[in-house]
């Protein structure tokens, strides 16, 4: 494949991306999209329980931002975590097995949809208490600085998390100690049934939120993978270079309800359709075709593979052994006593689609 660069844009990082890079990222978005579609189906079939929050529509944020990071930069996010885990390298089999509550799941069936973890791919979890992951991310950044490592931590949060006290304390700590962290706000305009304007002051200008801590601010269109990549690559280089923490307002949109049981009366069908016109996958496909970087045939193959991976994941998860009863008392303590038993971390050998070449 010819490594034609997209039109030169003064200093735009994505100019260095090859067609292969872009196709790999497109494929990752497709894998996430198809995985989530199978997840929804399995949930309707009651093969998945509890709360489940789909990432459909926001794929470019996870894929574009993670592509801009170093291979072992740690990330941490909230409960809408399937996309981040897959983009970071978790194999879809282990993700679906976790949703099915199986021992080969990424948390041995004990975490569930909201708690995907993958130490080998530096995924420090999905976390279910809104804003609760923010100080954890600051702690990871503190540890990076403490160990004098050349890494940064990306902490994802929803727009609803902007109003949690723990977010405020995390931003201030990161700012006063100039920690290597990016707070990436996936601003999908809603927290459950509450549009951002209804609950968040300065919703129209989130830069003011970062300015309260003297923190560097950036904003970008989260529906365009290349724009996400450029925005986060710039921030990552700046933060890694010691420029202090940064806050990114990444405008995105979720096509489904908040979770699997949301009648979505709070937004009009037209609004959803309007955002879907700027679908992140179609946007990248059009860019690749228009700039001659890929053929429709290549693109169809990628989607075919993505669908296959999702189907295989369901198959793998259905056939995987259930989590045995004695796992109830493992992993409660790293140094157990009394009825508790030492646990073994999940065995997740295979590499997922997102892993670096």
């Amino acid at each position, binding site marked *: 494949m010819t490594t034609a660069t997209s039109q030169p844009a003064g200093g735009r990082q994505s100019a260095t991306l090859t067609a292969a890079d872009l196709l790999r990222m497109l494929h990752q978005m497709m894998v996430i999209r198809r995985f989530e579609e199978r997840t929804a189906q399995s949930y309707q079939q009651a093969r998945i*329980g509890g709360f489940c929050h789909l990432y459909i529509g926001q794929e470019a944020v996870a894929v574009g931002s993670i592509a801009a990071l170093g291979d072992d930069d740690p990330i941490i996010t909230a409960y809408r975590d399937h996309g981040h885990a897959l983009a970071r390298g978790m194999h879809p089999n282990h993700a679906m097995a976790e949703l099915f*509550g199986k021992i080969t799941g990424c948390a041995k069936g*004990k975490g*569930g949809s909201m708690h995907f973890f993958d130490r080998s791919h530096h995924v420090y979890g999905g976390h*279910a*208490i809104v804003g609760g992951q923010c100080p954890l991310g600051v702690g990871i950044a503190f540890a990076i600085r403490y160990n004098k490592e050349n890494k940064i931590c990306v902490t994802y949060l929803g727009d609803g998390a902007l109003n949690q006290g*723990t977010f405020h304390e995390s931003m201030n700590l990161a700012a006063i100690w100039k920690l290597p962290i990016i707070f990436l706000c996936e601003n999908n305009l809603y927290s459950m049934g509450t549009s951002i304007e209804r609950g968040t002051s300065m919703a129209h200008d989130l830069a003011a939120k970062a300015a309260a801590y003297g923190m560097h601010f950036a904003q970008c269109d989260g529906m365009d993978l290349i724009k996400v990549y450029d925005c986060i690559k710039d921030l990552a280089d700046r933060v890694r270079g010691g420029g202090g923490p940064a806050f990114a307002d990444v405008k995105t949109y979720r096509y489904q309800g908040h979770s699997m049981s949301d009648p979505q009366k*709070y937004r009009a069908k037209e609004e959803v359709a309007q955002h879907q016109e700027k679908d992140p996958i179609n946007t990248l496909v059009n860019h690749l075709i228009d700039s001659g970087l890929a053929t429709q045939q290549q693109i169809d193959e990628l989607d075919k593979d993505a669908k296959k991976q999702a189907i295989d994941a369901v198959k793998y998860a259905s056939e995987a052994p259930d*989590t045995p009863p004695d796992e109830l008392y493992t992993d409660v303590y790293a140094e157990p006593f009394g*009825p508790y038993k030492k646990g073994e971390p999940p065995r997740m050998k295979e590499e997922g689609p997102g892993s670096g070449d």
Partner: protein
Amino acid sequence: MHSFPYRQALREAMSEEMRRDERVFLMGEEVAEYNGAYKVSQGMLDEFGSRRVVDTPISESGFAGLGVGAAMYGLRPIIEFMSWSFCLVAADQIINNAPKMLYMSGGQFNVPIVFRGNNGAGGQLGSTHSWAVEAMFSSVPGLKMAIPATPRDAKGLLKAAIRDDDPVFFLESERLLGMGARGEKDFSRYLKRNWAPPQDDEDFVIRLGQAEIKKPGNDCTVVALGRAVHFALEAAEQLETEGIDCEVIDPRTVRPLDVDAIINSVRKTNYCVVVDQSWPFASVASEIAALVYEQALDDLDNQVIRVNSDDVPAPYNRALEQQMLPNTRKVIEAVRAVTYNA
């Protein structure tokens, strides 16, 4: 007798009290325009408007503390936690400010407030979303705590809580919200035991601190709280076929706790099982057991058996969660064991 789900009982209690007292208002996440994350406040925005049914940002410390301040000023807030698992970010406001304000102000500022929401595990919500807060908060003087198991109790206790001049922690159960609706699992027991609240009785209030004998019996006292009442009643039905006549006592409130009702029952049956969905260590079941030993030691023909959740974080996996939580089978086994019928 008609269908009257637990969810409707909560809604009617709030609506009746709001009609009756202008100072009462409901505040919480998605309570208004979304009609409640669990449809408890369905239709209340239309009736009372956004001044009295107020949606909030996701700021529990902020709006719980707001409720305490408004209560000090003379209003009577109902603050909803979508789940009591989300109250930990507001712990200082609800267990440090609310229950102590009257005391540290030397009797000048009481805090007539109700904190309510879904409590307890079940439904595969995972480790951080499955809190049962009975033990942790019932130890704090200055608050009251109610935990209704039926639509009738839900309505009567919530009306009492809203009218009470002290902070009341009201522990509902997402697993019971549909209870009392035709087709629901326990609908037959609901009908048989007359668990619908009286209709058109705006003053139907159940005094806090009054246990109810949900099922009289002579052979073994089973004390159960909230959702666990239904495990106890189901177990009693099974045990009856084995010739063991259980007496199921539902304290309905943890603070104040109707200890006399429990002791009187144990004096009669000489055996006692306590069912509590919280973790075992220093739980409400531990307190009830200690009280029974202290006040009825000579009437006991065996130790008190406590049935709690297993002492582990809540797992997502369905089978493991069922293994962890109290259930009917565990109650049956406990009663057989305590009455030497194992």
